[in-house]
């Protein structure tokens, strides 16, 4: 319950911080950190234009996408407090629930019959497929290390001590950040601010969405950011009491948002044709984590 409330709270200003960081980095003042949220509320009040080609898929897809993200957030624990949903193997549920949202966002893009949106859909499907093994290898290794299979228990028993564990923590953070960037179609993989439809991934998929639906999709992105931020924060909590963990949570989320902003300001997007290789490399980092875990358990050598 705490994690859900805090993630929703953070989602209100996460993208705002990202945008603000980017503005400052490029020498502008930039909008306030709640501006993206105000935009979304404005969208909720607006009417919508639907394409003549679309069917009921286009009507239900944004709702399912949003619901899937909320459902996934419910699985995330907060330090010693379980998420609303917690059971053994819940990270598999987490990944598959996110996948159902992705499925619908992809077919709703295809529903418009636009060649650009099809292009975005194809890329989204491919890239998120390639990111999948990295997440599963990471969680599998952590499950092996801790002997538990639910987010809550894994994070509760994951302690920093030896050098290897610090290295594992850094690599796990890296993998989670990168998965987050891929899932949200952000910088190294996709540039949300590009002006050419041919080079977009996520943005081009929602070209035809408007009004309430667009608001839902945009806010789902904010929520997803905060959700991955919470996962990263959970790596570092252990079983700290709330008066430590809540500030740490907020600091980590802010740091995450600032670093996303910095990353987007100072790196260029990869060439589209090299994205696949880049994303698949993440799995090798996850494999490194796996071997690190084997070393820690003394099974290797």
């Amino acid at each position, binding site marked *: 319950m705490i994690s859900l409330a805090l993630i929703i709270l953070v989602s209100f200003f996460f993208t705002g911080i990202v945008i603000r960081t980017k503005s400052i980095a490029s020498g502008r003042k930039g909008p306030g950190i709640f501006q993206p949220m105000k935009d979304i509320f404005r969208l909720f009040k607006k009417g919508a234009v639907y394409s003549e080609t679309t069917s009921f898929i286009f009507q239900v897809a944004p709702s399912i996408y949003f*619901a899937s993200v909320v459902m996934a957030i419910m699985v995330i624990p907060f330090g010693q407090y379980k998420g609303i949903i917690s059971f053994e193997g819940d990270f598999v549920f987490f990944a598959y629930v996110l996948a159902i949202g992705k499925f619908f966002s992809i077919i709703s893009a295809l*529903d418009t019959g*636009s060649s650009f949106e099809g292009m975005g859909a194809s890329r989204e499907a491919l890239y998120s497929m390639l990111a999948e093994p990295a997440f*599963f290898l990471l969680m*599998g290794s952590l499950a*092996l290390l801790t002997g538990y299979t639910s987010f809550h228990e894994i994070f509760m028993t994951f302690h920093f001590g030896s050098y290897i564990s610090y290295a594992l923590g850094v690599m796990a953070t890296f993998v989670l950040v990168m998965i987050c960037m891929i899932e949200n179609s952000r910088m190294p993989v996709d540039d949300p601010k590009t002006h050419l439809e041919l080079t977009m991934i996520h943005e081009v998929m929602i070209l035809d969405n408007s009004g309430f639906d667009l608001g839902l999709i945009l806010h789902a992105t904010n929520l997803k950011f905060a959700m991955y931020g919470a996962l990263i924060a959970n790596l570092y909590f252990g079983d700290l009491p709330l008066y430590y963990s809540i500030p740490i949570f907020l600091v980590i989320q802010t740091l995450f948002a600032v670093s996303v902003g910095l990353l987007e300001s100072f790196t260029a997007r990869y060439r589209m044709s090299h994205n696949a290789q880049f994303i698949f490399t993440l799995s090798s980092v996850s494999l490194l984590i796996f071997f690190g875990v084997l070393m820690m358990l003394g099974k290797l050598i």
Partner: protein
Amino acid sequence: MDNSQFLILSIWVTVAGWLAIYVTPARFRGNVTGIFVFITAMLTSIPAIHVLTLNKIEFAISGISLIGNIPVRIDSLSAWFILIINLTSLTGVVYGLGYMKPYGDQKSNLTLHWIQYLLFHSSMLWVCMVQNSIVFLIVWELMSLSSLMLVIFDHQNSKTLKAGLNYLVQMHIGVAILTAAFIWVYLSTGSLDFAAIAQFFQTHSNIWLFLLFFIGFGIKAGFIPFHSWLPHAHPAAPSHISGVMSGVIVKVGIYGILRMITFLSTDYLILGELILGLSVLTGLYGIINSAIHRDFKKMLAYCTIENIGIVGIGLGLGLIGLGNGNNIMIILGFGGALLHTLNHSLFKSLLFFSAGSVYQQTHTRDMEKLGGLIHAMPQTAFLFLIGALAIGGLPPFNGFVSEFILYKGMLEGISSSNMYHVILIIISFAGLSIIGGLSILVFTKSFGTIFLGTQRTKLHSEPVEASLSMRLPQYLIIGIMLLIGIFPSFFFSYTSQIVITSFPGLENINSGSLTPFINNLSLVGIYATVFLVLIALVYFTRLLLNKKNLTQTSPTWGCGYVAPRASMQYTSKSYSKTLGKLLGFIVTEKKKYTELESSEIFPEERKHSAYYVDFFENRIIEKITNRLQYFMNLFQFIQNGSTQMYIIYGLFFIVIVFLGTLFNFI
């Protein structure tokens, strides 16, 4: 009447069915088949349900002098498969009634088709029951031949015949290997009863005989590299047959493998590692291939191979569990495999049926020619969508349940094995996640290209919604799928019970060690329901808020271009092209075209075609058959077609026999 009488009666019902089909007027023959399939299904399901809840059935059919008594045993494993076969055959025949309507004028062909359907159904059932090698092989052969006849319904088409021939040959290679395996058992134990196989395994090395059985049954099941009949036979067959074949006939192969696993007594680990590794590769290979094909039935056929891989992962995990004495892993592995067998037979037949409705209306299997069918066939689109979600393993449907059990089995395996197994299992873990991700790519592609957007080419006739008798069985299947998705622990408690009774040594496992997992699984079902409620909540909020807002419709935003055409939409080929390029070493693309020559100033119209070839078929099987053909062609001079030569052969033979007897050589 007791159970054995029910079973014997079911044979007579099949025979009576043939006569009944023969004597009824042509237009009722389909319905008569439906009735007889229903009666057979009832007669065999009642004993099967008894077995699942009470004890196993064992009796012998006597009175055949050649073979002696034929032992018929139904344990819970057989019962599970009998129920799956009955369910899919029933939905298949009801769907088939509507699907075969347009072929009503081919009366004799249809009669043969329905007679074969009855034979096919009951031969599959008896494969799961008889436990005498010779009778088993005969029933197995009946099953293969009757399914062949069903596949080549459209026999005027040379491509169908070729696919049928391919199927026939591959099935007989399988039978040959199985026969060799059974003969080996017979020679060393002197018994044809299946119990002798267990005896054999107790005293001999387990690996080689099991591998023979695995290959023999694996050809039916479609493990790589024995899969190459599937992508040919499934598209060629009528859709209800493809649904039933993919839904159950490949599962009979899984039954065979599982049956042999129950007889094993040593070498579990090495066999488990082999099956696990091969299954992950099978799954990946199947789904990669299904991503690139544009013939939607071929896509579904490759997807069957992928799912056989997933079932195989369960078998491999169970075997490794047996080797390590890890009871939970045995139950999760085999139990997950059994549940996935049921799940796959449900959603694959659903997908083949709904794809069949599309084929019936459009007469093409090429996705590239379709598009926008959701407007003309909204219900079929919905049915296909549900099948696609379920096969992608997405909650709240049944595919997620069995994949979740397998994931749990792997996590169990990770924490309790030696390093070698840990590495193998974590790679399978990642492999299964790639399979899941790819199946989303595959089914967004197929659903999007077939049903969404606008029509890409002009069809011969305007498509309309499929008839009620075709849709009804599909809704039934969806109902069962949702039941499994929402009450998974109920179904899993049956499959785990099957595993416990099938393997010696597990009987005294205390049920307490399984309860946490079963409770866990029921949580999955509850959360799946919560998810559905959440979606409904978000959607109704949207409806409420949208009431005040103005909505309007206009053409799709063309990014500034104002004259978009249907042919400009993203195609299925372009959707998966990047993946195809990335994995070009597995899925090779061949192109046929003629280059422009420098002298051609005004080039003429020309054709360009690109298609993908199957790695194993193209690189291995064809190479071998080409060599074989080359070698056989060396003897062509014998068969030269001149009558004089043939007379000389005869004379020559007589002379040899004469001389042989004269000098006591023969």
